Each structure stands twice: as structure tokens, then as C-alpha cells.
């Protein structure tokens, strides 16, 4: 992670009366894999399109390598995009699609041929040169779209939900492949998705967005373990979010009892939200339990069972490899470092 490559400064954007981006500030470092993550309509695609040059923000600045590029048109930016529905040229074959950008830059045909050969082998589609685009499967079209963008050696590759149309298995494979490509080519990726798992798998940095605002920026581990507010906690994986009171550093009250935790720096008796991941609620023998509750339901999910346990007046979502039958009484334990404290958000 070296120098700063892209900087967004107080970007505001609206379509008509609808405000879509609100004071967006973002820093993307060179060779970083950044994911813009959020529900649909959160402004992540608009942010990407502003970087690509397809939208002009109402106010704020876009810097690329230190230079302000607000008024630089898309075709002059050293950025390439993989579009959501691939946007391959249907009137051209695979070869001509990939050659499109190189021909505009007047590269000689021999070099183009070599470049395309290399690119096709990179995306595992060697020998596809003369195929019609319409004869390719979704996954193959996706790879061609990636090759068409990467062949231009952009400094930044923008990807707008590129795996959205693929089936789960293919998506997982492509996630790994994309990450490998990004690392071996040393190109900055800015990736838009609404799939939190995809974001956690691939990113160096995740930018969680909601309603045109950035909610949190951090590494996947930070975002997962230390969500900064209830929206992030809820959006990134399933979690139990309970309101509580921070008594003092390392001491918190929630669910009707006192817990030890590892958080500090809150005001005395501050109203806070507590996040506990379903896998962090441990089922233990009664003598070691902090709470005891009754299993309401238990569903087998493959690797784990998903249970709902009622204890201390709350229904807790629990993921455990142990199966307990509905109606059983179980003991629950939460380790101090598994209790995540968040400042309470002002009610909207």
C-alpha cells in the first residue's frame, strides 16, 4: 500500500430532487482493492460512475494522482470499467472487443494480437478470438469484459457488480480469480457490490455506504468485528443488536445483567448499542453460563445449526455446531472480546 491514487473530496450528487451522495470523502491507495458495499440505492454505483467520468458531481472534487479531474471526460481517464451487464459490443467478435481500446490508441496490429493472446490466457479463454459474443455464457462474457478492460493496462479498474449475474459456484471461483489478478497485475480495483460476503472475501478496504453516506471505512476484519454503528453491524452478516448502558471502561450492562468487555472511552452511563455475532454466543454447561435460556427453534444450515434461544427477555440468534432440541434449556456465555460496543445513533 503506497501512495494515494484517488481522492474524493466532499462529493455531493443528486438526480433531480433526489439526493444520492452526501459529502463523500474517500481515499483510495495505489494497488489497493477497495469495495464499495451497501444496499441498492445507497449511492455506491454513482460513486463509481463519478470516478469513471460518467457522472459529474454537483459539488466536490475528484483527484487522480494529485490532479483534479472533475472536468476530464471519461475517454481521457486512465481508468477502465467492467460494467454490470458486461456491455460487450455485440457487432464485434471476442478479438475485436478486446482490441477496441488498443486500436483507438493506434497500437500496431501485431502487438494487439500478442496482447489479446496474453489477456485471453489470463482469463482462461485462450482460443476464443473468433467467437461471437452472443455465443458465450454469462461467465465467459464476464471474463471477456474483464480482459477488454485490463488489456489497456489501466491504473484503476472499476467493477460494477461484475459477478451479480453469475450463479453461486461460478461467483465464488471468479472472486478468487479476480483477487489473484488484482494482486499479480498490481492494479487498483474499485469494486461495487451489495454482497457482504463478496466484499469480505476480496477487499483490502471496505467502504460501507447507506443512503448516500459513508458509514464506515476499514479492513474486512475491522468492519466485521468492530462495526461502527447498527447499520453496518446489521448489513455485514447477521448479528444480535441490543441496547445497553456503558457503566464505565470495560463494564457494560445489557440484557438485564452486567458483562465485562474490552471497550473503553465511552462516557459514564452512556446509552450504547451492543453487537454480538451469532457465532460468539457459546452454548455452555449451566455452571459456566452467564444466562440460561430456552431453545425456540433450531435449523440445520450445513456447517452449523441456526438457533433462536430466548434468554433474559431477548431472542438470541445463535450459530453453533452443537444441536439443541427446541424446548431444551441451555446456558449461554459471551466472552468479553466478543462484545462490541457502538455509540447509539441518533434516531432518524
Amino acid at each position, binding site marked *: 500500500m503506497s501512495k494515494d491514487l484517488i481522492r474524493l473530496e466532499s462529493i455531493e450528487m443528486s438526480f433531480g430532487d433526489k439526493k444520492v451522495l452526501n459529502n463523500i470523502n474517500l481515499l483510495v491507495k495505489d494497488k489497493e482493492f477497495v469495495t464499495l458495499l451497501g444496499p441498492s440505492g445507497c449511492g455506491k454505483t454513482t460513486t463509481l460512475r463519478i470516478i469513471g467520468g460518467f457522472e459529474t458531481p454537483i459539488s466536490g472534487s475528484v483527484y487522480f494522482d494529485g490532479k483534479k479531474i472533475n472536468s476530464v471526460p471519461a475517454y481521457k481517464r486512465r481508468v477502465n470499467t467492467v*460494467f454490470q451487464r458486461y456491455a460487450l*459490443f455485440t457487432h464485434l467478435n471476442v478479438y475485436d472487443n478486446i482490441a477496441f481500446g488498443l486500436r*483507438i490508441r493506434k497500437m500496431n496490429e501485431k502487438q494487439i494480437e500478442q496482447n489479446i493472446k496474453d489477456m485471453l490466457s489470463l482469463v482462461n479463454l485462450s482460443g476464443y478470438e473468433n467467437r461471437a459474443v*452472443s455465443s458465450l455464457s454469462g461467465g465467459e462474457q464476464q471474463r471477456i469484459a474483464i480482459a477488454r*478492460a485490463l488489456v489497456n493496462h489501466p491504473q484503476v479498474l472499476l467493477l460494477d457488480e461484475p459477478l451479480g449475474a453469475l450463479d453461486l459456484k461460478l461467483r465464488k471461483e471468479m472472486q478468487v480469480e479476480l483477487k489473484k489478478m488484482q494482486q499479480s497485475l498490481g492494479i487498483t480495483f474499485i469494486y461495487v457490490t451489495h454482497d457482504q460476503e463478496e466484499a469480505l472475501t476480496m477487499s483490502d478496504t471496505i467502504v460501507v455506504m447507506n443512503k448516500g453516506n459513508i458509514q464506515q471505512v476499514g479492513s474486512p476484519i475491522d468492519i466485521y468485528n468492530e462495526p461502527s454503528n447498527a447499520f453496518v453491524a446489521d448489513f455485514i452478516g447477521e448479528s444480535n443488536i441490543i441496547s445497553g448502558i456503558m457503566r464505565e471502561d470495560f463494564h457494560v450492562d445489557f440484557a438485564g445483567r452486567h458483562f465485562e468487555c474490552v471497550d473503553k472511552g465511552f462516557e459514564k452511563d452512556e446509552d450504547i448499542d451492543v453487537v454480538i455475532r451469532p457465532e460468539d454466543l457459546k452454548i455452555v454447561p449451566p455452571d459456566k453460563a452467564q444466562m440460561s435460556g430456552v431453545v425456540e427453534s433450531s435449523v440445520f444450515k450445513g456447517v452449523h445449526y441456526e438457533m433462536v434461544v430466548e434468554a433474559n427477555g431477548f431472542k438470541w440468534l445463535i450459530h453453533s455446531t452443537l444441536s439443541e432440541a427446541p424446548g431444551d434449556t441451555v446456558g449461554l456465555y459471551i466472552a468479553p472480546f466478543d462484545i462490541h460496543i457502538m455509540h447509539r445513533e441518533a434516531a432518524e
Partner: protein
Amino acid sequence: MKKAYLTALPYAVYACIFIVAPLILIVVYSFTSSGGEFTLEHFQRFFNFDNPAYMLVLWRSVRTAFVSTVICLLIGYPMAYILSKISARLRSILAFLFVLPMWMNFLLRTYAWMTLLEKTGIINTLLGAMGLPALNIMYTEWAVVLGNVYNFLPFMILPIYTSLTKMDQSLIEAAQDLGANRRGVFFKVTFPLSLPGVISGISMTFMPAVTTFIISRLLGGGQNALIGDIIENQFKVVGDWGFGSALSVILMVLILLSMNIMRRYEAENAEGGVLL
């Protein structure tokens, strides 16, 4: 399955009576002599290289239709392009203005051009008032071309407009993304992708233009008769149904051939605004 077949029956009957039967009759007539026997005389009369008068008429028809089609394309494409780019409000107003003349009778519209183009017509009166030389295109091939362009332009604009609006906007963005400026985007992406629309526009303009007889009669006068005029003449004035039918068959074959070439091109470039 059987029911679906039944619902097509009325159309099948209609097609047999009004399309298939007349076609068969025309072909039969074209090979029948006045005495009622099989003959090739009508075709020999047309393909007479000692006196190629009829072939020259066909050539003139094709040439006039071709020029009209090219002019329609040159006017129609930019028009369709502008229509596809402007706001929905402005677009509906413009589209309305285009369609408006079509609510008037075809003959009436063409007669209107006569009064506009006449030696002492409105255009020449205005030109004279401005001290400009008179425009003498009435009863020339150019008047026929003008009439064709005026009447058939909407058929060129519409399919091109359809193919332009149906185009995936992200393809244009993809081209920009890959470094194409506005010119590059147009010539490398927009235009090639709108070709199916252009092709249907061309066939929808060329076909009526090559077969027309009213426009050439009213604006072209006697000396610029087209193949359509000759055919009409054979049936209504001369009464030589056999020769008239033969000319129709020749024209039909010509149109089928050109459509086939177009279709083959279209098949290679699948997708697009085919209106036929």
C-alpha cells in the same frame, strides 16, 4: 396445440384469397398469350435488346428509387439520431410533426407539391419576388425524387430511430471508457449497431419508391414514366394483362432479390429494429 392451429385459420383463409391466389394469377397471366396458350412472348418483349425501352424504364425506376433512398438516408439518419437524443417532451412534439402530414391523403399531398413546384407556383413566385432565378424541376426526374423523399422519409426515420433507442446505453459508455471520443463512439459503436434499422429503413423506402406510379405521373409527367406507370397502363389503358403481369413478376423478382441480400446482411448482424 390443435386450438392454436385453429385460431390461425381465418388468417390462412384471408392470405389464400387475397395474397396467394392473386400472385398465382399474375404468374399464370404472365405466361399466357392472348389466345390462352402458354407463351414466353411477354418476357421476350421486355428482354428485347434491339429495343430496350422497357428495360430502360426499369433502369430509370431503380435509379430514381436508389437516389431517393440515399437522400432519405442522408436526411433520415441524422433526424432519427436527434430524435433519440432529445428529451421525451420535445421528442413527442417532433415525432408528431413528422407523422402529421401522413394523416392527409397521399394523393392530396402529392398534388400539393404540384402547386408548389409549378412554373408559376408558390416556390417560383417567392423566388421571383426575391429576384432569384426560377426553379424548373417540375416534370423532371428530380421532382419524382423529391416526391419520393417527401412521402417515404418517415419510413426511413422510424426503423432507425427504433434501433437507436433500443441500443444499450452502457455500450456507448463502454466505448467512452475504452478511450473513444464522440466521433469514435459514433462510427465504431452507435452506427454499426444501428445498421439493422438502416437496412429496414432502406428496404421500406426503396420498395415503395421503385413501384410508385402516382408520384411519377403527377410530378414526373409523361416522359419520366416509371415501371409502375407502365404496369398500370398495361392493365387499365392497353388491356394487355399478360404483359402487365410479366412486368409485375420481373419487378417482384427484383425486389425479392434485393430483400434477400438485405436479409442476409441483417442475419449476420442479428438484433435491431426490424420493422418488416
